[in-house]
Structures are given as C-alpha cells and as structure tokens.
C-alpha cells in the first residue's frame, strides 16, 4: 500500500467522493465507449476487424475523412488569424471601454447561438438568389454548397474561441516589456514580431487546436452547407445510422473521428498548455500607455474588426428579420406569428430545454469543481487517470458521444433512453471539463498553505473544502456552470440522438423546422435561444462581479475552451 492509499483510508469523505466520482465517470464515460467499441469491432462476441475495415476502406468514407481533416485545419488557421485580429485590437489598440463591449458582443453572438444559424444566413445571402450574390451583385447561378461556404460559416462561428483564448494571453504580456524595446530603439514592427508574437505562440497553438477540434466535431453546418461534393465524417456517421440503420458503420466512422480528435487533445494537453500559466501572475507592472500600435495601424485594425463585426451583425439581423416576416422571400409583411407558434406548439421544446439546461447547470458546475479540486489538491491513487477520463467526452466529437449513449443506455442493464437524465448526463460529462480546467487553473494560483492551516486546526477535509476552498473557487464554479448552460441551450451533435417523445430540445426542433418548410419558427427559436443565453450570461457575470469584489481571482471569460 502506498502512502497515498493510507491517507485515503484515514479520510472517509475524500474516499467516498473519489469512489462516487469514479462510479459516475465509469457509467457515463467509460461504459458507453466500451459498448460502442463492442458494436464497432466485435461480431457475435469475437473480435472482428473485417467489417470495420470494409467501412473504412470504402473510398467515399476515406474521402469524407480527408475532407474533415482539411476543413478542420483550414478552420483552425482562418479562425486563429481572425481571433488574433480581434484579440490584438482589444488588447493593444487602446479602445474605449464602450468599443470593447461592442467587440465582445460581436464575438459572443456566434458563440452563444445554435451552431447552424450562420449556415442558414449563408444560404440566404450567397445562394443563386442570395441577397448578396443575386440582388446586390447580380451573379446568376452562384453555388453556396461546398468547402468554401462551409469554411466561411465555421470560421465565423468558431473564431470567438480563438479570441477568448488569445485575448488574456495578449493582455497578460506586460506592455512594459514592449516599452523597453521601444526605448532601446526598436521599430514597432520589430517589437511586434520579435516580442509580442513569440510570447503569444502558445496561445496560437492552443487556439488552433481548439478550433480544429470544434470543426472536426461540427455536424450541423456541413449538414446544411457542405452539399454533395464535400461529405465530412460527422455528417456521414449520422446519416449512416439514421438513414441506413447501420449502427456498426456509424460506430466505425465515429471511431475514425476519434483518432485525430484524441491526437489533437493530447497535443494540446501535454505540449501546448505546458507553461501557459506563467504569464498570469496577477501582478502587472505600473500602468503604461501602450505604444505598440501606430495610429494608422490602429485604424486599420479597427476597420478590419468592424468589417467582420458588420458581417456578424448582418447575419443576425437577417435571422431576426426572417423571424418576424410571414414567409421570408415571398411575403415580407411583418408578423409575430412565428413567435406565437414557438410559444404554443414549441412550448414543450422550450420547457424541456430549460429544464435540461437548468438541471445540468448546477450539476455540471459542481462536478467540475469537485473533480478539479481533487485533481489539483488531493493525492489519491488514480488521480491522473481521473483527470484524463473526465476529459474524454469533452475531447470526443459529439456524434460519437451521442451514438455511444444511445447504444449503451437503450437496453438493460441500464435503460435511460427516453428520459431527461440521459440528456442531462450527456451535457454534464461533455461540458463540465471547462469547469474542471478553470478550477485547476484557479487553485494553482492559491497557496495550499491556506487549506493546510485549516486542516492543521483540526477541520476535516469536507469542512475545509466547504468553508475554505469552495469560496475561493466560486468563480470557477460559475464558469463551469455557465458553459454547461450555454452548451445545453445550443449543442446538437450529441443530443440529436438522445431526444425522445418525452424530452425534446430547441436545437433539434430548429433543425427539423429547417428541413421542413418552417423557416419562420426556426429563426424565431434561434432568436429566443440567443436572448435566453444572453440574459443568463448577464446574470452569471453579475454574480461573478459581486463575488470578485470579495477578493477572488479574476476569471477572464466563462467561455474559454
């Protein structure tokens, strides 16, 4: 027995918590994955790689695999550049507070809306009769389906992730360092590319990998925009199962996605994030007027950001417009009818979504804080393994998680399909890792001696956690809970497999409406989701600000990652 195990025996609260968490992780992370691999690679109880190989050897599937990687890489590069533009402008252009708020809003909008809103707006704008292509530019027969538009829509949807990753890093680079270079006679450009850029490199890599993973998992945008000639893997896996009733094929395709997803995650975890914490010291030098951006460059940056912001604003204005006219494109008289529809016929979806999100939010927040705390502060056997396992569902594309849950929980011994619990569990275990990471990051900045003092005075570990640690990590709790809420309102890739008669979700309704004829309700639902998320986020930010006044550490964003 190791010393760690002996300590565990002396501390029943810790012991109980660890066992409970492992039971949950086993049930909702490892078990579904095991059932999925059983279906994909076993036949009648025997390992049979032949059928799996046949699925992968299909040239169309290989084509889809390559397309997925290509799309993800391009989205990674494009989104990181755009995110850097925004982050650099926010951190260095010396904008007034009001403008910074505008910048934040422009980046928040795509992040908090259902994933295919951009795709819908793209079709209206750039199709053969698009507002831009046909009515503005007079182009005939423009094609909106394919790589270019999928790429454009995904970059616009996901660049905020890069912004949120890069901005704290750029802000944390002490301007005094740049000042020193200036006073030594460097040009602005030289300062930029020899100081600012190298310091931001870990952020770049991190942002690229996050975007790569997001695109790899995205299923709704390609479903609407990719068209016939550009199939991607998540969409193919979905169609394989829902259309061809081929669970095995879908499972195998999902596992094909697992390889790059796991690779990206490991890269990010063990290479990029190493040393990422050093810049966050919380001790900035004396304030200095930032001089690193020339006046003309400042204007160029602002104009570029404004242009991107205008595109985002235009897309959402279009969405809102589609929600208040009778039939977009045919009858443009104003009406509230679609809102009436969603609040009567769609009320169940709204209620279900709010219940699921409302339940997932506290559970996800709590789970994140607990795991984060144990992993960062306590010593017990299997600590590293717990950290890794808790991240699995987060790192996997949603399609895999959804299919795995469907396969695992539809038959005895554990039947959960058709319940809200399966959707809540899916969201909690998929999206609480943000809370875990926020907790770990926060705890790394809090001296363990505070807790040791509490225990030295005779408090049990549970008491210490509740009365000393918990108040200190409240911001991380809110961060975790915010992310779980937002994702519960907007995610679709996993849960489209889990909705049922009794529990349906707004995002699934939007997709159904889109594929029926009901564009108005789809747009109205989307507007509603954005509104709800904004209200809840504002509430969380307000709570965070109040708590921070009490001296807690700053959490720059509740959305990071």
């Amino acid at each position, binding site marked *: 027995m190791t010393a760690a195990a002996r300590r565990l025996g002396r501390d029943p609260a810790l012991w109980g918590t660890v066992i409970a968490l492992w039971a949950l992780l086993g049930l909702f992370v490892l078990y579904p994955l095991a059932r999925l691999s059983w279906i994909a690679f076993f036949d009648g109880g025997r390992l049979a790689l032949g059928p799996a190989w046949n699925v992968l050897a299909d040239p169309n599937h290989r084509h889809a695999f390559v397309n997925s990687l290509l799309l993800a890489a391009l989205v990674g590069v494009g989104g990181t550049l755009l995110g850097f533009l925004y982050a650099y402008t926010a951190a260095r252009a010396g904008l007034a507070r009001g403008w910074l708020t505008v910048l934040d809003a422009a980046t928040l909008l795509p992040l908090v809306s259902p994933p295919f809103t951009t795709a819908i707006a793209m079709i209206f704008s750039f199709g053969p009769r698009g507002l831009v292509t046909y009515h503005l530019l007079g182009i005939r027969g423009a094609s909106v*389906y394919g790589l270019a538009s999928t790429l454009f829509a995904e970059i616009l949807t996901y660049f905020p992730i890069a912004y949120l990753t890069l901005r704290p890093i750029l802000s944390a680079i002490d301007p005094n360092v740049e000042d020193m270079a200036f006073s030594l006679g460097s040009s602005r450009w030289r300062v930029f590319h020899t100081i600012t850029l190298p310091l931001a490199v870990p952020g770049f890599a991190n942002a690229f990998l996050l975007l790569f993973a997001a695109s790899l998992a995205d299923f709704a945008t390609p479903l609407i925009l990719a068209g016939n000639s550009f199939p991607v893997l998540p969409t193919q896996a979905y169609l394989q*199962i829902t259309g061809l009733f081929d669970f095995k094929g879908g499972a195998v395709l999902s596992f094909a996605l697992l390889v790059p997803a796991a690779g990206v995650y490991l890269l990010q975890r063990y290479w990029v994030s190493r040393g990422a914490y050093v810049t966050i010291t919380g001790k900035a030098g004396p304030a200095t007027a930032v001089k690193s951006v020339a006046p003309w460059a400042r204007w160029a940056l602002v104009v570029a950001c404004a242009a991107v912001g205008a595109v985002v604003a235009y897309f959402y204005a279009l969405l809102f417009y589609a929600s208040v006219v009778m*039939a977009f494109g045919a009858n443009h008289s104003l009406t509230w009818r679609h809102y009436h529809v969603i609040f009567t016929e769609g009320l169940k979806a709204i209620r279900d979504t709010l219940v699921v999100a409302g339940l997932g939010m*506290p559970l996800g927040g709590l789970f994140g804080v607990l795991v984060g705390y144990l992993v960062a502060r306590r010593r017990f056997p299997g600590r590293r393994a717990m950290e890794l396992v808790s991240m699995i569902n987060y790192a996997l594309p949603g399609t895999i998680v959804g299919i795995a849950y469907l396969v695992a929980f539809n038959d005895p011994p554990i039947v*959960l399909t058709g319940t809200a619990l399966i959707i809540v569990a899916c969201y909690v275990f998929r999206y609480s890792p943000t809370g875990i990471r926020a907790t770990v990051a926060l705890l790394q900045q809090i001296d363990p001696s505070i807790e040791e003092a509490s225990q030295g005075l005779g408090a049990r570990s549970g008491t210490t956690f509740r009365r000393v640690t918990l108040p200190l990590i409240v911001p991380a709790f809110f961060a975790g809970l915010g992310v779980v809420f937002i994702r519960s309102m907007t995610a679709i890739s996993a849960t489209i497999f889990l909705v049922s008669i009794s529990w349906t979700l707004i995002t699934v309704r939007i997709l159904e409406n889109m*594929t029926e*004829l*009901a*564009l108005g309700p789809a747009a109205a639902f989307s507007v509603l989701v954005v509104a709800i998320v904004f209200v809840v986020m504002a509430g969380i930010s307000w709570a965070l600000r109040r708590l921070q006044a009490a001296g807690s550490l700053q959490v720059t964003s509740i959305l990071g990652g």
Partner: protein
Amino acid sequence: MPRARTGLGWLAVVVLALAALVSPAAAADQLNAYSIWPENWARPMLQEFEQATGIKVNFVRFSSGEALARVIAEKGNPRVDVLFGGPVETFAAGIKEGIFEPYKPPAFNALPARFKQADGYWVAIADDPLVFMTNAKFLKEGNLKAPASWEDLLNPAYKNMLQMADARTSGTAVTRIFSIIEVNGRNEDKAFDYMRKLRRNVQVYTKSGGGGTLPVGLGQAAGGIFFIVDALDTKAKGYDVVISFPKEGIGTSAEAIALIKGAKNPEAAKKLIDWATSPAMQSLYARHKINFVPANPEVKIEPSLAEVLKGAKIFPIDDAFAGANRKRVVDRWVAEVLNAKE
C-alpha cells in the same frame, strides 16, 4: 455554515427532481407516436383526435428513415405505440425488421388493396403523388416551360439548380427512385443511368423530403421532385412555384399508419388507427389545408386538389417490390449516384 446547508438541501431537491425525470410518461388516456408527417399537419390531426376521444397523443416528428431507425433501435424496449404517416415503402421495410403488430381497423375491408397490407401490418391513411415543382421566375427568365417529361429535367438549363431528397433519410427520395425504376420498365441499369445524368443538375440532396421546397420557392434552386402535399403547401405560403407532371407518369405513395409490436398503450393506439383510417380524420384534410388525397373511398377528394391532379398520369408504387428491394436500391443509389465520380 448555514449557507452550506442550504446549498446541500438545494442539491437534494435537484437530485429528487432528477429521479422523477427518469420514469417516462405512461398513463391510460394517452399514447406515444413517432410522426413522419411534419408537425404542421400531424399536430392539427392529432389534436382533433384528442378532442374526439380524450386520448392525448405525445409525438415527435422524424424523417421516415430516422423514425424507422429509431423504432428498430428500440425494438427491445419500444418507446412509442404508433408510427404515424410516412410513405408506405418505409412501412414495408419495417415489416422485415419485425417491428409492427398486425391490426385491421373497421375501415380495413372497404380500402382498395393497395391501401393496406394484406395481413394488416400497415393501413393507409392518405395517398400522396409525387410532382415536379419549379420556380416560376426561373422558368420565365430561362424561357423554359414547366418540365413535362423526365427528360426535361436533364436540360442543362437546370445545371446545379435542382434540389431533391437524400435516399438515406427520406421516403420521398425512395419513392422517387422507385418511380424512375418503374417508368424505365423496371430496368434498373437504365434507371440508374438516368439518375446519374440527373445528378449533374442536382445542387444538393436534402435530408428531408420537403427540404428542397423552400429553396425552390425562394429561387435558390430552380426545381425538384416533391410530394404534392409539400408542393401545394409551398404554393399556399405565397411562393411563386409551378407544379407539373411528367407524361411518362410518376409514382404515388400511400401514407400509412402502423401499430408497433410491444406497444405499451395498445388499446389507445388501436383507437388512433381506427380514427385515422376512417372518414373522421380524412375528411378533415381539406379544412386544415392539407393536400393529401384521402385513402378512404368514402371521402371525396377536395375540388381544388382534383383540379391540380386532372390529366396527370399517376401510378402506385408496388409496395411488395419496394419493400423487398429498398435497402439494395438505396445502397446502390448511394454508391452510384450520390458518390458518382465526375
């Protein structure tokens, strides 16, 4: 300390609430259904049923392929009692999977043979012919007549401008493919040859049968092949579209209803099937502006719908042939048409 206590109490409430959520709804006066009909048609019908009988129907809408995949996946522990609406080839495929329980409603004997499965595995509630639907403005600008033959759709003027459904998820698509096989005298090679040529004009294959109607209405696409009920709905919404029929003929598919094997509310489910196959439901189509052709011979076809159908050559899809060949044909379509190398 008091703060921590309230926190724990609150957590207990959440956990209890969660436990309540795990047990799915089951009561005497309700039933569960997957609807293949879009909500805007299924909802008014099922509400009428609720008013008439006091039985509440909980339903979710899925494309036919998705609905079928779900029922098959849930075979060991069925979540619904009825599969409501959707083209008959979907039901024919379901019989082979052993997911239905035969049931013959009172209207069974009065129905023509093609509107029922001989053993009662499914019964038709409506008839739904396919049509060509084109954007009026596109036709005018290109100086085109509304397509009146399958060959007309191969016109290069439509290059990259047609939208129709993906056979992997949509029953509309499968009915379309069997129509094409039928007009080619069941010569499958010839039919697939035609479909490969048609693909050049197809902009995108949509997930849902009606998925292309809005783009055609908006002019984002020039035209496509849809069920009449979707096409007339597009027109009714105010989009300027033209409906036409090919002179070689086009298929019609019965829309069916079936009892799920192992249904948890079989009595309520049978009442729904009785009601849906009777004039009680089918005479309501016109009032709710649902342009299905009634299957029950006692219900008169609505005059404006009859006007549209006048002179059109329409043939029923052979459901036995379709059911037996569905998977093979769809697989072949995916391999040779969808993923055609060009």
